[in-house]
């Protein structure tokens, strides 16, 4: 672990420059009010409360968006059909992050984007705590793990449990 934390600098040809006067300054940014349309999200968030997943389907290109999207950028129409999406998903892509936990130790954690079965988009997700980073790969089958009492938000899926890979059965 110690090797991951130490910053080993690499040698390169450096040139020393004279120093001109430097002033320190700050930008005190005011708060902003971003406008964002949430109407298309309401049916989806309601279903999340019942532990059910839905996405909206574009009638032009038949793509299913999860979480739902207001306008399909390809066809420029509002996706209006709601379809059920399975709880099972596959890891579309992943990276491994090295972050300090509360005790100050560097922890390896996989960060994943998952694609649910039955939809055409990826979404941000977390794998179950204690998953070995070496087990993560693209196409890893996972299943949504719900909160005990969903509140109607994206965090209702706490994390994704690993499933047994059934790829061998298909052969």
């Amino acid at each position: 672990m110690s090797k991951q934390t130490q910053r080993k600098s690499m040698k390169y040809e450096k040139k020393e420059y004279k120093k001109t006067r430097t002033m320190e300054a700050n930008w005190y940014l005011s708060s902003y009010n971003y406008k964002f349309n949430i109407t298309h999200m309401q049916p989806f968030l309601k279903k999340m409360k019942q532990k059910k997943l839905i996405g909206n389907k574009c009638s032009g290109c038949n793509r299913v968006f999860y979480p739902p999207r207001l306008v399909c950028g390809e066809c420029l129409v509002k996706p209006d059909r709601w379809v059920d999406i399975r709880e099972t998903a596959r890891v579309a892509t992943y990276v491994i992050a090295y972050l300090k936990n509360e005790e100050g130790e560097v922890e390896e954690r996989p960060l994943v984007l998952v694609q649910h079965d039955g939809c055409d988009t990826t979404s941000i997700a977390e794998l179950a705590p204690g998953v070995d980073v070496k087990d993560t790969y693209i196409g890893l089958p996972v299943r949504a793990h719900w909160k005990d009492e969903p509140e109607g938000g994206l965090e209702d899926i706490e994390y994704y449990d690993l499933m047994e890979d059934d790829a061998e059965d298909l052969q």
Partner: protein
Amino acid sequence: MGRQVAITSAGFSEHASKRSDVSMPELVNEAIEDCLTKVPSVELDDIDAFVNGNMPAFEGSNLPELWMTDWMGARNKPLMRITTGGTTGGSVAIGGYYTVTAELPGIDTVLAVAFEQQSQGDTSVGLASVAYGEISILNSLGISYGQLNRLLSGGAAIGVAAYQATNYMSKSKITEEDLARVVVQNRRNAAKTWWAHLKMPDLTIEDVLDTPYIQYPLRYGMVCPASDGAVAMLFTTEEKAKDMCDIPVYVNGVASVANETAVLGYDGSGSAQVDPSAQIGAMKSAELAYSQAGISFPRKEIDYAEVYAPFPNQELMWDEKLGLFEETTAPEMYETGVTARDGELPVNCSGGVNSTNAIGASAMERPAVAALQIMGKASNQVPKTVHTSIGSGWGGSLNFITLMVMSDEPKRKWK
């Protein structure tokens, strides 16, 4: 199409992690001076219009073009400013091209300048401010800031590029050694370029693999630096170009393509770019620019390529997506030396973005170097004669691509 446009000169300032000796306008002035000394017949009075661009959020000075009007020699002349994120430089170069090709009355010669002095501010904070709108939407839908922070924990662009690297590596079945090989080629090339930032003449693959991970699969040694620097390019008409220099470089094709974002979707929705390394936008931009330039076999007809690649996996990926190599064969080309300085198709002989990254300027340094290679005035000149070259740019959440195709012959006219 408008009239034919030619590039007659390009100049650079010195790049370093901290150019503590100059202020922002002085830095820009350095690049303009280098650009104009290469064309002795051109005075500042001969320049009719200016295009200027950088990413203001990274340095904390809004509207920098007001500050540097006099330093550029733009007083009483048209001045336009362009900011498009990572592709700023590419868009500024294309802006210069458009200004000349539009045949505006009295505007023949245009100076395009792109710059960035990142040591003034904090790039990660600047990038966070760019992504903040999207992140606050996800937060309002119930994803905690803790999880979102982890998503972008690599800091800056690594957070999204690492996903691309995993996908590319599993698709083309390469190891980290192949990535390190690209880095070694770039940084050794940078050692021979006078204005480059990370000059490492003795770098080896082992040195790169010895550094810690920032975010798997990208290591500290593979990641681009943050530099201060500026670049200037002179665009003019075909007739005037012949008086200015011996070998004018003609711009035969430009493309700027926006695709759907990868990793983060719009308004909290999922992203339909399931595979971030698919890069349909890059293929589209290549198709657009090559068809304008009349290039049907890019691998045969292009002699030199400058590819915007802060991370080694991206250089391999874009070599393929821009049609230089077949899919998944780029790593072999780096192994066999096809892309080396004396190879069949040299790539990034200036060291690329991997060695020098002044964000706003980076995407314009690519066409600038590619043009100088045709003129034979580049710092790390390739031994063979270059007839056609390309310079690309990348930005956004893996979704904006710019491309410029240059040649020593004007466009073929099909009639």
